[in-house]
């Protein structure tokens, strides 16, 4: 099937580049810092009942509000830059594979990398906690691990991020400049820090995944945001694909 071929080609093109490694390294870096902090401090948090829940929640929140949007901007910029920098589009579009398939492969890989990194973060957080508990039993992670809540939160973050991934995939493909793609990501993410204080801020694509996780932890299932993120993301991907693939390759 053409899409599988296109995905294989994308993975091959990422060889010896940071694109795929980042999915693993970005969450790992956060966890190493966390480990050092908590190990040195000796306790997770004094004012919570369930330290596991707090640990998972705060790490995921920090990741999804700040790191994830920047990470998505970087990944999508890298995936398209490999073509922009090497005049790849004119070669790809003269091959017997539909243009839409090439675009779809880049979008799907960006989604896979984002999902992988989010779930890796969760995995590393849990490993982190177990390691801290083994080395410093007094640290307070005595309760059982709230798997259900944490995994559901991670799934919400992933599905909610589809809209922002689609937007970034399109921007990265449409404009040749790496600076434009990253700059847009940085600007939008920083704006998100302000927008969180606004009542409609929960629908702002760059803040949405993080706010969805927070909402869920507070006991409310963010249905509207879930639909906007996942369905909105798919619709945006289709529209972005249509727009990009009908352009002339000058």
């Amino acid at each position: 099937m053409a899409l599988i071929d296109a995905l294989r080609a994308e993975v091959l093109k990422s060889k010896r580049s940071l694109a795929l490694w980042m999915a693993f390294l970005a969450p790992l870096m956060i966890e190493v810092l966390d480990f050092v902090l908590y190990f040195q401090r000796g306790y997770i948090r004094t004012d919570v009942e369930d330290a596991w829940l707090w640990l998972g929640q705060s790490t995921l929140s920090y990741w999804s509000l700040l790191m994830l949007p920047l990470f998505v901007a970087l990944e999508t910029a890298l995936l398209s830059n490999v073509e922009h920098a090497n005049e790849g589009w004119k070669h790809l579009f003269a091959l017997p594979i539909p243009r839409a398939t090439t675009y779809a492969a880049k979008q799907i890989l960006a989604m896979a990398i984002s999902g992988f990194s989010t779930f890796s973060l969760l995995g590393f957080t849990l490993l982190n906690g177990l390691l801290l508990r083994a080395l410093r039993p007094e640290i307070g992670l005595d309760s059982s691990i709230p798997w259900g809540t944490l995994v559901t939160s991670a799934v919400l973050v992933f599905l909610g991020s589809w809209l922002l991934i689609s937007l970034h995939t399109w921007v990265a493909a449409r404009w040749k400049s790496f600076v434009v793609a990253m700059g847009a990501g940085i600007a939008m993410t920083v704006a998100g820090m302000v927008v969180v204080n606004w009542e409609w801020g929960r629908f702002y694509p760059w803040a949405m995944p993080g706010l969805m996780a927070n909402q869920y932890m507070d006991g409310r299932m963010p249905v509207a945001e879930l639909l906007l993120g996942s369905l909105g993301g798919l619709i945006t991907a289709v529209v972005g694909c249509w727009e990009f693939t009908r352009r002339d390759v000058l």
Partner: protein
Amino acid sequence: MHDLVIETSGLTRRFGGLTAVDQVNLRVSPGSVYGFVGPNGAGKTTTIRMVLGLIRPHAGGVRLLGQPMAESRRALLGRVGALVESPSVYPNLTGRENLEVTRTLSRAEKRQIERALHIVQLQEAADRLVGGYSTGMKQRLGLALALLNEPELLILDEPTNGLDPAGMIEMRELLRRLPDECGATVFLSSHLLAEVEQVATHIGIIDRGKLRFQGPWEELHATMKEHVVLGVKRPALAKKTLERAGWAVRSNGSDRITVTANGNADAALINDLLVNAGLHVFHLSVQRPTLEDMFLTLTGNAQGGG
């Protein structure tokens, strides 16, 4: 009767107020090496990009291998190999890995990679990173990419781009071998007339968007006259002598004169005429018009002669 390999009808494209390609009707026959020539900015690359479906024409249509591009684009592109301007290669991959990427997308067989590497003679460097390749090697890799799916039609836009003289000779040898080795029709564009002259069987001349000439090399050749260039001690007198006998003569300044004439037989006649008139001839050569001469004449930039 074989279908034309490339056939365009009234192909037109504008950029703002400029008509870059103006009602171009290409006719490329199977088995030929078609040299598409014109100065920089004449519309060669734009035409090629329209033929490949990379740019949408504002008017006109394209038929490849007998079928309209608009209807069977994907199937046709599977039978075509293209190298458009610079090669599209990924520096973080080896030569072989680059070929594997394209092979995956065009569904060619694995053995095609070795075959393509062999044709362009990159087997030894195949496992080195492309980032370390010379310009010539990258160009050859670009050609290998175009050859991967054993195309019936090879479209090469400026294949000697960025090559040094040695690289150009190598590429020229390669291009000459292709129709026999691969059975493909070759369509190549260039602004280097001397290069095209060496390999092409058919010529298409484009200038300022319009196709000025299209046909077999001999046909173009026949429209231009040969010259005999003579070096004589007394050019003015020689000129008068020849003109009295009915030849068309032109002075080149200094001691050379050019006579419009055909071939060696005429050259001998002229030589005899001058020698019998007591004029010593110290230089004599028969000049076939080059593609450059014909090009200059056709595009209206002729500077006399011919």
